[in-house]
Each structure stands twice: as structure tokens, then as C-alpha cells.
């Protein structure tokens, strides 16, 4: 039953989704959208499972003092801090005891982790964690500068949450993305080494296409290079891309069919 019920469910929903493509009627569309909503609902619950996994792995790293275990504290601290930021709203211009509150919550979590790791001093760490939580509760109850909200009419209103996202995460992402330029350069160097005839052809094609987009070379080389570059992009390149797309489309169809018919059960841990 453990294997048959998932296969039956996949078959039923797979066949429905296939036929839904050919049935534009509103009722069929409604069921399809209902199923898509379920993906979101399952995703939200699965996120909790994911966070628990991250928590476990990070604690394990700290426990075993693995290489780079200190970063796990940063990961867990950031995770807790961002959660707290997300559920709090500043009421005026002043921050009050807000950051002390966040620090107390983060510290409490660290102490609980320490209590789990160091069983000999578990009571001490658990007691300290309890003190931190008590301090956080007192601060939350007495400080009028901010308050805890699970939902506001205007949506997410946390200044700190947005600030961390806008001024920390986005610049870090931009930095990571900018590394791509250097990696492309090093990858291109490896790809364009003329080791054999095919690599030489690749190099020549690349030179033509690159010179087409070079603002200094284009006036010197004239229209002919631009036309050759366009031809390379629109004819051989496009033909190869379309061939791959066609193969991918058929591969997706065949795999989906195998999954729906229960032939392919790799996603259940059975090939």
C-alpha cells in the first residue's frame, strides 16, 4: 500500500493534468488551479521541514566542531533574527529595547543548542536560556517603541527586515552574481584554446560574434562581420538550439509518461 497509493495518486493527477491541457472549460481550469494551490500549501509546510533540517545540520556541525563550525552560529543567529524582524513592527521613530530583545532571543537559542551539546551543563545552559527568554518577554511587554505582529493590514511592515534584505542580502547577491563575469572569462579561455580543428572553429566563430558587439572593432570590420555574426547566431546556433529543444521536449514527455504510468518510480526511491 505504501507504494501503490502514491502511484495511484500520480496516475490520477497526471492523467487529469494531461487532459486538462485539451479541455479549456472553466470547471477543468478550476480543478487545475485548485491543484496548483495545493503545491503552494504543501510548499509552506515543507518549508518548516527544511528549516528544521538546516537547524539540525548546523547544530551537528557545532557539536562535532567540523571545519567552519563558527559559520553555523552565524547561520542560526541570522535565521532567528530575521524571523524576529519579520514578526515585529516599530511603532514610532525610536527603536527602544528592540535590539536587546533580538539579542536575548538569539542568545536563548544559542544556549539551548549549548545545552543539547554539553549534556553535563545542560541545566545551567537551559536556566540561562530561560532567563534570556524571560528578559525578552519583559522587554516585549514593557517597551512601547515596537510591538509584535503576526499580520498587519499593510502587509510586512518591519523596518529591519526590509533594511537587512535591501542593504545586506541584495548587495551580497549582486557580489555573487558579479563573480560570474570573471568565471566566464576563465571558462572562455579554456574553451577557446585551439587544440584541434573543432576547437579552432569554435574560436573563430566566437571571435566573429564578439567582434560584432565590440564598439571599437565594428566600424573597422564593417557590415560583413555583423552579417556573418548574425548568420552564425541565427542559422547554425539556432538550428542546434532547436534540435536540443525538440529532444528535451520529447524527453520530458517520455519521462512524464513513465512517471504517470508508474514505470519510473525514482522519485519514490524505487527505480
Amino acid at each position, binding site marked *: 500500500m505504501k507504494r501503490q497509493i502514491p502511484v495511484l495518486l500520480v496516475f490520477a493527477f497526471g492523467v487529469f493534468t*494531461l487532459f486538462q*491541457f*485539451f*479541455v*479549456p*472549460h*472553466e*470547471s477543468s*481550469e478550476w480543478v487545475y488551479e485548485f491543484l496548483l494551490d495545493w503545491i503552494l500549501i504543501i*510548499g509552506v509546510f*515543507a*518549508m*518548516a*521541514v*527544511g*528549516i528544521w*533540517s*538546516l537547524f*539540525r*545540520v548546523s547544530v*551537528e556541525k557545532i557539536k562535532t566542531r567540523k*571545519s*567552519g563550525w563558527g559559520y553555523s552560529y552565524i547561520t542560526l543567529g541570522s535565521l532567528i533574527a530575521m524571523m524576529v524582524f519579520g514578526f515585529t513592527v516599530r511603532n514610532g521613530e525610536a527603536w527602544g529595547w528592540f535590539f536587546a530583545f533580538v539579542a536575548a532571543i538569539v542568545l536563548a537559542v544559542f544556549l539551548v543548542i549549548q545545552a543539547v551539546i554539553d549534556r553535563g551543563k545542560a541545566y545551567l545552559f537551559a536556566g540561562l536560556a530561560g532567563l534570556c527568554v524571560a528578559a525578552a518577554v519583559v522587554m516585549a511587554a514593557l517597551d512601547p517603541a515596537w510591538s509584535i505582529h503576526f499580520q498587519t493590514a499593510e502587509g510586512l511592515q518591519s523596518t529591519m527586515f526590509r533594511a537587512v534584505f535591501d542593504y545586506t*542580502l541584495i548587495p*551580497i*547577491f549582486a557580489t*555573487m*552574481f558579479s*563573480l*560570474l563575469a570573471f*568565471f*566566464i572569462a*576563465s*571558462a572562455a579561455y579554456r*574553451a577557446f584554446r585551439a587544440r584541434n580543428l573543432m576547437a579552432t572553429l569554435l574560436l573563430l566563430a566566437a571571435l566573429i560574434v564578439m567582434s560584432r558587439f565590440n564598439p571599437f572593432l565594428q566600424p573597422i570590420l564593417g557590415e560583413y562581420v555583423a552579417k556573418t555574426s548574425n548568420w552564425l547566431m541565427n542559422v547554425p546556433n539556432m538550428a542546434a*538550439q532547436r534540435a*536540443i*529543444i*525538440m*529532444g*528535451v521536449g*520529447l*524527453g*520530458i*514527455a*517520455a*519521462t*512524464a*509518461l*513513465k*512517471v504517470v*504510468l508508474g*514505470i*519510473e518510480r*525514482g*522519485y*519514490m*526511491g*524505487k*527505480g
Partner: protein
Amino acid sequence: MRYRPILLFLLILLCFTTALGQEPTDETEGPPDTVVVDSSLLPAPVTNLQARDTEDDNGHSVTLTWDVSTDDGSGRDDVYMYMIYRSMSPEGPFDSVGVAMKGATEHVNSSSKDRAQPDFMPDHTDYYYQVGAVTVGGLITRSDVAGPVQSYGQFFNMGRIPVFVFVVVFCALVVFFVASARKGADLYVRPLAGIEAVDDAIGRATEMGRPILYVLGLGTAEMVATIASFTILGRVAKRVAEYQTKLIVPCYESIVMAVAQEVVKSAYADAGRPDDYDEDSVFFVTSLQFAYVAAVNGIMLRELPATNVYMGKFFAESLLLAETGSIAGSIQIAGTDEIAQIPFFIVACDYTLIGEELYAASAYLGREPILLGSLKAQDLAKAAVVIIALAGLIATTFGWPGFAEALHVEN
């Protein structure tokens, strides 16, 4: 003072009858009705206005066709657009529901299917339409009323018949070849270098005492590329369990993580080593693209895996991962169906599965006849597509449009 109520009543009656005598104004029409214009300046109306339910849709849509005004492209040539009006009564009032450009002879009036939206258009309700020819000067001449017409959804999209036929034929081919394979037919599948290298790579990792890093990509669990990757992960995990090598699977999505954990756990059980399975070897990292890259790159540089396997959906992070793996000195095997990322993997990895090879890999790894059967069906379908493309090329070259029209997919 005794006559005050009578006077008040007469005053109200006067106001009421005055209001009744007013012509209703249509604010959407543009120029006010009180403006007197020379009728010779008005454009000729559109003719032969027809309204019908839009075919092959979910309802809430009506298609209008007409013959253009004689002042559109000819005559005074001063028509620059057409306004579409709709009403629930032939007498009006008509509301403006869209515009069509000069020269247009068709307009699809699609409205919302959501009752809460202001432009909700219920099905199975009579509608009447007019089309107004609008001049550059803003003068409008409306056509005769067309209707009644009702919108409704269809139960089969006739425009997708070619796709339906292809799906049915393809399903039949897959079932036929799977059945043939089950009967013991010898099916040849060309070797995939990337997949053949998996065993060597796992052996290398065992010899070096280093782990194997398996990256499922940024796809969600419902994507077919991710599903194919799960199957390959199962095979790799089984081999890893047999060799007693360490496996690391950082996941981008929590549902993917849950499925991957189950896949790896089953693979260890199949290999006869269920106790060796470490639940923390498959873990969730983050659902942010570049944060995920940073985490996986960190793992590569700290753990120095002997082999990195990238299978699934990859986007801008593909080269960031593959180049870092290359710097770390790992053997790298990649497979993706994202065309834009394939060149990056080819350059930075030792072996790359291109496009559909990702889907073939699961069958190839297992060498199970029923999985190989579907590969044969794929090959035949590809041959059919090539033949149809060539036939279409010839038909179009010789001016036989019927062939292309027969295979045309509407929407």
C-alpha cells in the same frame, strides 16, 4: 401656508419629470452629444458586424468580425481606430469595452472570469455589440447592433488536435516498446560518456577518501528535470552505499529535500546497508539562488569532494558552481535541459549530459528493459518530427499551405 405641501409636491414632480425627459449621456463615447457636427464629416460605419463565442476557450469571451469602414484606408482615409461597445440590451446603453487599430477586422472581447472583478462577464448571457469608427478628429460613427451572442467554455480545444494526435501516437509507441522490452527484445542504446563516468568517479572518490557532492539544481520537485535527477541520485546513492563513500546533497527546496532523503534512504536499503544512511547527508540550505551558490561553493572548498554531480535545472549559478568545483580539483559530471547553461557546463565540467540525455540517463543507468523501451519510443518520435519538418519544408517551398495548416496549433 396651507398650500405649502401642494407646492412642494408640484416642485418635486417638476424635478422628476424634468429628469425623465433628459437623454442618457454616454460618457465613454468621447465627444459630447450636444456638440453639433456636420454629418458629412462623420466616417462611414463598419459593416457586416458579426459576433460569436470565442472558440476553444474557457468562456467569458466573444469574438467580433467586421468589414472596415470605407474611410479606413480609402475614401477620406481619416479613420484611425475602432471602439468596441457592449450592452446587455439591443437598445443600450452600450459601454466601451476595447479598441481595435485601424485596418483591424477582428477583435476578441475577453473579460474576467472572476466574479469579484469589475470587468466580470458571465457566460450564457445575451450580449449586443457595436463597433464605432473613430476619426482623427474624434468623430464616431457606430455600426448596427450585432447580437445577441452568448459566451461559453468548450470541453475540447479543437485547435490542439495535432498535439492530441501526437500525444496519443507517442503514448502508443512508449507502451509498445515497453511491452516489447518486457518480452525480451534486445534494445541498443548508445553509450553516454557522462553516465559511464559515474562509476569511475565514485571509485575515485572511494580511493581518495573524499565525499561525492550531488547537486539537484534549482528546480522544484514537480519539474521533470528534477524528477529525472531523483532517479539518477538513486543510482548514484546505491553505488555510493556499496562503495561506502560519503554523499553530500545540499538542497535548494524543502520538498526536493524531503524526496531526495527518501530516494537516498531507499538506495542505501537496496544496497543492503540501511544503517549507513545518514539523514543529515541530504539537507536543506536555502531557497535563495546566490545564497545557495555561496553555501554549495563553501562545501566544495571545505570538503573538497572528489566528484561533483550536477543534474537538474540550473540557471545563472551553473558556471559559479562548476568553476568553483573545477578550482577545487573535483571530477565534474553535469546534466541539464536548460539550453543557456549547457555551454557553461561543457566548458567547466569533465562530462556533460546535453538536454534529453538527462532523461535518458536514468534508463541507461538502470539498464532495465522497460525504461530502455521508452528511449526507443523517443528516438522514433524524433525521427517522425524530422520527417514532418522536412515534409513541411517541401510543402511550403512548393506552395502547398494545406500541410502546414493541418498541423497548425491555435493556442
